[in-house]
């Protein structure tokens, strides 16, 4: 073994840092497709719609259904692996990127020369990032770049969403404790924040940590209030994940109508999961925990129904995602 001198080490560190800061020139990450997309980014269109959430509510499936429509073109990073039934398209642009990287964002979308706002047969494109809904700065950032964007939100019974999120994060190794301990700990943190606000770490990206917001990410009213302050109600389509599962075609017609594209019956309505999520079953939530969470979410759900003018009845019913896949 030849040991590196300190100057060689320092040079190595400098090259490493430079490559990290300039990923587009990093030979290990270089691809002709990315280069082509970057060079043609000025010709590319910005999205016409964004599915902003909620995670574990069927957003991946909805996106995979939508892009089967002949007028809807998928973002470039959408990757459907047919046999595994998994897909990925989250861009996370508005959470982490600054405005000078709009070209990077555009490079992910197709070149649509035939685009026209009022023509039913024109092509449209869109993306989905399920954590957009929770980030406090994202609504304003999206509005600044795309004031006329159409936003789609899929909402699932909060108790089932919380439980599904827990199992996903448990499998990822972000959580090691039981569901009950995890939610109790989060409730304690909510109370500590109320009683001792000076103890909060103020991490501006805290909302992005799914594992630490299992309960709070299902309090939809808190997040949608911010979105409705910035966007018109007509720009936001609210869907119930149970409807998407039970009456997929009717729900999709509703979405196509919202997106101003022609009605179309898609061929493949089989379940689609995000990449990295295995089709493993997990045990049902205990009755006492479910009741405790239903009580917790009750006032928040009432607030949501009032805010949106909807009638989500999540206090008695279970989600129709009965197979309990993570």
């Amino acid at each position, binding site marked *: 073994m030849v040991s590196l001198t300190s100057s060689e080490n320092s040079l190595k560190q400098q090259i490493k840092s430079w490559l990290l800061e300039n990923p587009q020139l990093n030979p290990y990450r270089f691809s002709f497709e990315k280069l082509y997309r970057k060079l043609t980014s000025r010709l590319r269109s910005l999205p016409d719609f964004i599915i902003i959430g909620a995670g574990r509510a069927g957003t991946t499936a909805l996106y995979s259904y939508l892009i089967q429509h002949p007028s809807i073109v998928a973002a470039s990073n959408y990757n459907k692996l047919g046999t595994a039934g998994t897909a990925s398209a989250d861009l996370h642009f508005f959470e*982490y*990127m600054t405005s000078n990287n709009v070209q990077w964002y555009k490079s992910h979308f197709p070149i649509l020369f035939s685009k026209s706002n009022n023509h039913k047969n024109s092509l449209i494109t869109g993306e989905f990032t399920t954590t957009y809904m929770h980030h406090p700065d994202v609504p304003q950032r999206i509005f600044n770049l795309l004031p006329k964007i159409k936003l789609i939100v899929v909402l699932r019974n909060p108790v089932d969403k919380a439980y599904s999120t827990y199992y996903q994060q448990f499998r990822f190794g*972000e959580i090691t*404790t039981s569901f009950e301990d995890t939610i109790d700990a989060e409730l*304690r943190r909510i109370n500590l924040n109320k009683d001792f606000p*000076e103890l909060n770490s*103020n*991490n501006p990206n805290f909302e992005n940590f799914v594992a630490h917001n299992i309960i709070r990410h299902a309090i939809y009213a808190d997040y949608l209030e911010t979105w409705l302050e910035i966007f018109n109600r007509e720009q936001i389509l609210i869907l119930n994940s149970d409807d998407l599962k039970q009456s997929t075609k009717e729900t999709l017609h509703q979405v196509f109508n919202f997106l101003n594209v022609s009605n179309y019956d898609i061929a493949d309505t089989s379940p689609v999961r995000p990449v990295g999520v295995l089709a493993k079953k997990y045990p049902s939530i205990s009755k006492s925990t479910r009741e405790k969470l239903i009580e917790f979410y009750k006032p928040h759900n009432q607030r949501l129904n009032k805010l949106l003018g909807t009638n989500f009845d999540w206090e008695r019913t279970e989600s129709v995602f009965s197979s309990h896949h993570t």
Partner: protein
Amino acid sequence: MNKNNSKIIWKDYNGKKKLFTIIPKPENQKNQYRNWNPFYSKLAAALFNGLEIFPLKPDSKIFYSDNSSNTTLNHLLDIIDSKGMIYLQKNNAAKIKNLKNVVIIDQEKNSTLFNHDRKETFDVIYLDMTISENLQTQILNHEMTLKNLGFLIIILNSIPKINDSSFRNQINDVITNSSSSLQFIQEINLSGFFKNCMMVILQKTE
């Protein structure tokens, strides 16, 4: 930027968040900022990975046991002021001299910590340790020296596998131990900055 009383400051640099503290300086001197590098400090890594409750305050009395580098110690010294104190337990603590607000505890005389006069001394206990069979005993010993509503921060190193059931059971045993008045607050996986490492935070509530 700094909404609350916490002395940690988040700043945005080209879309990337960075974490700073102000290095205490004598009067009439310009403030200097210390960048918290999450690759060098597990406390910083926990903050970057979603630590929600940051219990370290300027007047905190902190018991700090860590045999790795002094980076986190410097961070703690930035946070506490003249009212705060750090009780340092470290292998090579003899090399650390002339630090204000630091009391060095001799590891061989460690038992003095658990004398009656030391009971309920600390606001925060910070332990950087490896997973071992007597993990629970160690935690319960330290619990005695923690004030009511005080926080116990444990960094667990060399975790065999984060999803390993035996490791998970050890954590659960600590959390659900009936003889303990410690309540589980948060666990943070430090992956991305430190391999096989996690932070667990507990609060004493009698």
